[in-house]
Structures are given as structure tokens and as C-alpha cells.
């Protein structure tokens, strides 16, 4: 009702052009759904991760005058206003969007700022482009040095006494006479924010808000991830033109998914 009207008004103001060089556009917040596989035009099998953009919208635009830097705060998902903290609910209400489950900020150049309420559809990403995906990795708990750092451990037999999976020596003798800071040891592993770089977008379905990415992405199924344009794309990948500042949302009854053009025959 009121939210939808505000959203449509904001969406109508977006006139997508092409990403100019030297500009940074926003990313999106998506839900990691799971992994699957497909065969491309050459018949090679491509492992894919499915991401779902659950009503991804701009919640706040941060400017140099007010906040001292330029960024867009983007949210996705939904939460019952009764269940959200009042500050969270009020923040989203002030933007004219529903209460979001996850918010993330994306630094942008001032020409890429968007009004709050603008939806960021899946067609914001173009099949064939490279993206960076950041998420919280699956927690592994307290892990030993072999799993955590890939140490080779000790001998399984030949008289090795109680030293099959330990780290071995932790340094030299009197010089330096200490253990270096940052020495790899057993400890907590996982449940940390990590970014996978230069992941190719294989397929985009704007009508359903889905992205298929080649390869794996950090996090559990059902967890939120942040998707942005690759910061250091490999030079041999010529990136396709991307809508700037974002794409127009798909009209109902839009064509189905678009697949990336197949690369050279492997």
C-alpha cells in the first residue's frame, strides 16, 4: 500500500544507463539457496550456486555532507515489525521500506547514489560478469592445526609417541627465544566474514530474482551474502556492459533466465 507506492515511485526515477569507467555502483544482498549444476553450450559441466534476491532494496543513501562518505545501505528479506527492535523498524520505516532482515553497505561513487526504496533486481548483474561474494563462513569450532592450517602432522606409526596431529616445533632456540606472533596454531575456525573474488555470474532470472554463480560461495544455505562487482577482475575476462546505477525491475511476465555466453571450448 503505502510501501508499495513509495517503492514504485523510487523505481520510476531510475533510468539505467551503462556503467561508466571509474564509477562504482552498488551491490546487492542475497540469500544463498544451495548448489546445483548445469551443462553449458559446449557440454561442459558447470557447478553453480543459486542466490535469491529477496526484495533487495536501498534503505539509506549516505552522502559526504551528512555521513562523510558515499555509500548505499541495501537491505533484503523481511522481518515482522513486532519482532524487530524498534530502532531497526523505525529506520526502515523512515526509508519507506518494509523491515529488512539483513542490511549491508556498499561504497559507491556519488553518481551511483539511489533514492531509498529503489529495488535492486537480479538484472542488476549481467550474465558473464565477475562478482565478489562476501559471507560468513560455516563455523567449524575449535579445530586442530591440520584442518585449520593444512599442516601435515606426524607419522601414523613408526614409533611416533602421541604426536600424530600436532604442530611439532613452534620455533628456534635461544635466538629468537620466543614464538613469533601470528604463529599458526589450533584455534577457532570458521564463522568469519570471507569474500570469494571474481566469481562468474552464469545465469540471471530477473522475474524470480535468482542469480546462478559459477562455483561456491561462503556460508550456509539460507544465509545472507553480499554480491558486488569484482574489484579486481581478471583482465582476460572482458566484462559485459552493466546497468548503471541499477537495472529497471522486471515487468510481470518477463522472459525467463538469461545464460552467460559460453567461453572458449574447454
Amino acid at each position: 500500500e503505502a510501501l508499495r507506492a513509495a517503492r514504485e515511485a523510487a523505481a520510476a526515477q531510475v533510468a539505467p544507463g551503462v556503467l561508466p569507467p571509474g564509477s562504482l555502483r552498488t551491490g546487492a544482498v542475497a540469500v544463498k539457496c544451495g548448489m546445483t549444476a548445469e551443462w553449458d553450450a559446449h557440454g561442459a559441466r558447470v557447478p553453480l550456486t543459486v542466490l535469491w534476491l529477496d526484495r533487495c532494496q536501498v534503505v539509506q543513501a549516505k552522502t559526504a555532507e551528512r555521513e562523510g562518505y558515499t555509500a548505499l545501505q541495501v537491505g533484503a528479506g523481511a522481518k515482522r515489525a513486532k519482532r524487530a527492535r524498534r530502532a531497526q523498524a523505525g529506520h526502515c520505516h523512515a526509508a519507506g521500506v518494509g523491515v529488512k532482515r539483513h542490511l549491508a553497505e556498499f561504497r559507491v561513487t556519488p553518481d551511483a547514489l539511489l533514492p531509498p526504496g529503489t529495488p535492486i533486481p537480479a538484472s542488476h548483474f549481467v550474465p558473464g560478469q565477475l562478482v565478489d561474494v562476501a559471507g560468513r563462513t560455516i563455523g567449524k569450532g575449535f579445530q586442530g592445526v591440520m584442518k585449520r592450517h593444512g599442516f601435515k602432522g606426524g607419522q601414523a606409526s613408526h614409533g611416533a609417541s602421541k604426536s600424530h596431529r600436532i604442530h611439532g616445533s613452534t620455533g628456534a632456540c635461544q635466538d629468537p627465544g620466543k614464538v613469533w606472533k601470528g604463529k599458526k596454531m589450533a584455534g577457532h575456525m570458521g564463522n568469519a566474514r570471507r569474500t570469494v573474488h571474481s566469481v562468474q555470474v552464469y545465469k540471471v532470472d530477473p522475474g524470480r530474482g535468482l542469480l546462478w554463480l559459477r562455483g561456491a560461495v561462503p556460508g550456509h544455505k539460507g544465509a545472507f551474502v553480499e554480491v558486488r562487482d569484482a574489484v579486481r577482475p581478471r583482465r582476460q575476462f572482458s566484462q559485459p556492459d552493466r546497468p548503471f546505477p541499477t537495472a529497471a525491475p522486471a515487468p510481470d511476465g518477463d522472459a525467463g533466465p538469461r545464460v552467460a555466453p559460453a567461453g572458449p571450448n574447454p
Partner: protein
Amino acid sequence: PAPWTPTEERGKRKELTKRAEHIMETLEAEAAARAAEGQELEPFKPGDVLEVRLRVPENRGRETVIKGLCIAKRSRGVGSSFTLRNVARGVPFERRIPLCSPHLLSLRVVRSKRVRRAKLYYLRDKPARMSRA
């Protein structure tokens, strides 16, 4: 239209993991249906001797025929596959073939062997003559 609505519009909400599972189930079913309509494959079970025609991309797309005993069948939608086992010049070999692969052209059941298992991995410890297709 998608068989899932944005969370904002749902009256009753489920955990995101459940919604993600639903999305994956729907996509897998669609992908498997798309792959199946391309090829009409005979139904088969572990224990059948199969003659499989494959397209070999390394050999400029030519057809090759592989014959073997199906020792395993895995049904996972798009990830479905089966394993063929045969003996060539005294050397046993196994090959796992995805069912939804575009390289799989056709399947034919030559013979059926009575087995009482779904997976015939015990043949690996048996003499080679028992795995001959």
C-alpha cells in the same frame, strides 16, 4: 511467476533455510524435467547390462558405445547418475555417467541379472568374470 513470494508479502513466514530448500527443490525439478524431455531413456535398474551411446567431445563429437553392468543408480534430480562396470582385456573398469548430461544419447537394456542389492559394490572384491557384461 515464481512459486515463491518475497518474504515481505507472506503472511506466515518460514525459516530462510526452508525457503531456500523449497527454491532449490523447484529449480531441480524444472532442470530435471528439461533434461528428461530432451532424451527418452529406457527405465533400468542396477543389475541390468546396458549399452550406452555417448557423444565424446574430445573426439570431435563422435558417438561411442559403452557396454557395462549397471552397479549403481543415483537419483538426485539433475545430479542423477549411474555407474557401469565392465572388464576390458582382463582389466575391470567403472564409469559414472550423469543422466542429465547432454552427451548421453541413448540407453538400451541388453540383459537383466538378478541382484538383491541396490548397489553392487561387492563385485569389486569378486573375480573379474562376475563383472563381465
